[in-house]
């Protein structure tokens, strides 16, 4: 079976589960929960940066999905639809905790002063080996938490969860140029911030 056939088969399995759940089969819905709960938790925690909020988002997003299954049109993937619900729940909680400064909603691909590379240095061949696993997690967590939530959300959906640009645009209710612009700025800002930990030192020390 080639890769495309495999993906198509997974999608049709998913649609079978969705239809069964719509018809009232709760165990079919439970399978959908099992399939995507880890992803929803990861996305929620990245956005809210708070463990309790992320737990609430997982519960509320799946309940909302169940509640609104009838309205799911089957024109998009169930997962994309679910992510949209989860992102909205997560952003709502984030705003409640921390009203965010506004970020310009640029539709053009602009780099913006905040994302222009300032320091250009090659990294050591394996930056992961410079730090213990715990230290590395701390660095990565702290670094991504420093991004504005609108950039962080796009980066997480595209680069961590592997959604396509189109799926990300659909899940976030954004245009494709807006997704691309935010993704570029997120990637460049993360790169800049990681630079100080990973760049090659002349003396060979950390």
């Amino acid at each position, binding site marked *: 079976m080639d890769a495309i056939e495999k993906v198509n088969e997974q999608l049709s399995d998913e649609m079978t589960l969705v239809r069964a*759940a*719509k018809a*009232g089969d*709760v165990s079919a*819905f*439970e399978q959908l*929960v*099992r399939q995507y*709960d*880890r992803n929803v*938790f*990861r996305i929620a*925690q*990245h956005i809210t940066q708070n463990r309790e909020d*992320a*737990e609430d988002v*997982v*519960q509320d997003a*799946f*309940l909302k999905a*169940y*509640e*609104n*299954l*009838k309205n799911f049109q089957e024109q998009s993937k169930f997962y994309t639809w679910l992510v949209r619900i989860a992102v909205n729940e997560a952003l709502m909680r984030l705003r409640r905790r921390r009203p965010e400064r506004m970020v310009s909603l640029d539709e053009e*691909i602009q*780099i913006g002063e905040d994302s222009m*590379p300032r320091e*250009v*240095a*090659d*990294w050591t061949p394996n*930056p*992961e080996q410079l730090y213990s696993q715990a230290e*590395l*997690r701390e660095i*990565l*967590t702290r670094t*991504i938490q420093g991004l504005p939530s609108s950039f962080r959300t796009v*980066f997480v959906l595209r*680069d*961590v969860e*592997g959604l396509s*640009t189109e799926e990300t645009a659909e899940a976030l209710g954004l245009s494709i140029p807006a997704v*691309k612009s935010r*993704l*570029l700025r997120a*990637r*460049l800002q*993360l*790169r800049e911030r*990681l*630079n100080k930990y*990973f760049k090659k030192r002349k003396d060979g020390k950390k």
Partner: protein
Amino acid sequence: MNCSDFLKELTDYLDGTLDARTREELDEHLQWCHNCFVICNTTKKTIEIYRDSELYELPEDLRTRLRSAIMSKCHDKKPGEIA
């Protein structure tokens, strides 16, 4: 192509979604521009390191707890009937 043009295309370049001609122009720019070459490589590494990082994995006990909370609310209802 200058460095600023290169940066604007960087995301599509890394995602492999550029048309052949633009891609060639970017490849050519990378041949002689060391700064863009480094930015391109370190940005690629940034993406890979986050993709492989497994931050925020859902612990199995919490997963079970959340799922039973969700399913207990779903159980007695048909979809669309949750208050």
